[in-house]
């Protein structure tokens, strides 16, 4: 078996062999199919490679992508997506946990550095309310998920069209980003602190951040997560 990573880099090389017209057709198919995050990556990359090889062989015989895959690329891509098997839970769980813990380590580092820099100028209260932090973190995680899903949705929608409304899409992304930041920056001020609390200064914050980041790094290599 050839790994999906290998297939992706090979795909990047081979696409250069396509004519301009065929490349446009194939690129839209590829993006549309790859942006379905819930599908098995291995199967996705294998079928994309088969289609690309087919297209290159057809091109050598003077055929176009339109003749090979039909006049309705979106309908064709939907057929492929409909038949691709979903990603296995065994693959999703490590991937999502890796991203989550990586994000936590990054937040700890930012928190530590911010407290350190701020404490140079004024007295900083480094009290942590774990329940509040948990809520903020869950909201952050969910809103990141929504933001990614929304941007992928806009890209998928813009494919297969001669004239996509770039301005409208940019405005939509802009609004969603503003919403994202106001939610995540505003929320801590809206929810009053509650439950137990403890002191968590910049040194423990940075140390736990670094340790967690190293664990993530090790796990990524060890279990070949990405």
């Amino acid at each position, binding site marked *: 078996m050839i790994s999906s990573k290998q297939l992706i880099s090979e795909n990047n090389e081979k696409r250069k062999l396509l004519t301009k017209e065929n490349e446009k057709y194939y690129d839209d198919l590829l993006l549309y199919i790859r942006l379905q995050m819930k599908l098995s990556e291995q199967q996705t990359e294998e079928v994309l490679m088969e289609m690309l*090889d087919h297209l290159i062989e057809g091109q050598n015989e003077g055929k176009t992508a339109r003749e090979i895959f039909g006049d309705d690329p979106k309908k064709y891509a939907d057929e492929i997506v409909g*038949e691709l098997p979903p990603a296995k839970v065994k693959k999703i769980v490590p991937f999502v946990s890796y991203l989550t813990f990586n994000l936590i380590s990054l937040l700890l580092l930012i928190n530590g550095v911010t407290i350190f820099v701020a404490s140079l100028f004024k007295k900083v209260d480094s009290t942590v309310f774990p329940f509040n932090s948990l809520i903020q973190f869950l909201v952050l995680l969910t809103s990141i998920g929504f933001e990614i899903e929304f941007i992928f949705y806009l890209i998928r929608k813009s494919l297969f069209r001669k004239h996509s409304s770039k301005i409208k899409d940019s405005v939509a992304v802009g609004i969603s980003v503003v919403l994202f930041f106001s939610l995540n920056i505003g929320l801590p001020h809206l929810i009053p602190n509650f439950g137990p609390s403890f002191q968590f200064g910049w040194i423990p914050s940075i140390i736990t951040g670094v340790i967690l980041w190293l664990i993530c790094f090790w796990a990524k290599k060890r279990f070949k997560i990405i």
Partner: protein
Amino acid sequence: MSVRSQLLKGVLDGCVLAIIEKEPVYGYELSKKLQDAGLEDVSEGTVYPVLLRLQKNGYIHGDMRPSESGPNRKYYFLTEDGREALNELSLEWERIAIPVTSLLRRGDKND
């Protein structure tokens, strides 16, 4: 969709299984064989959704191997389940095809 392509849709899976039963093929080869068999208006790309579906059902399994020159080829093999499905399909097809052929031929009946 034309009448012809609607009719074809239901039996294409069986045709693909029948070709793979003879010998393992890869996608491009498969589309050529379908066309050589007389199904010229099956657009070549149609084979990929069909192959994915048959794989998902466990009727065939694909094996992508690197080749020294040219493209990697993913060869498809018939599984035991696939053989059973093909047997059943061809049996059912006969039970439909014979009466339908005689009905649609019209005219040359003794009525």
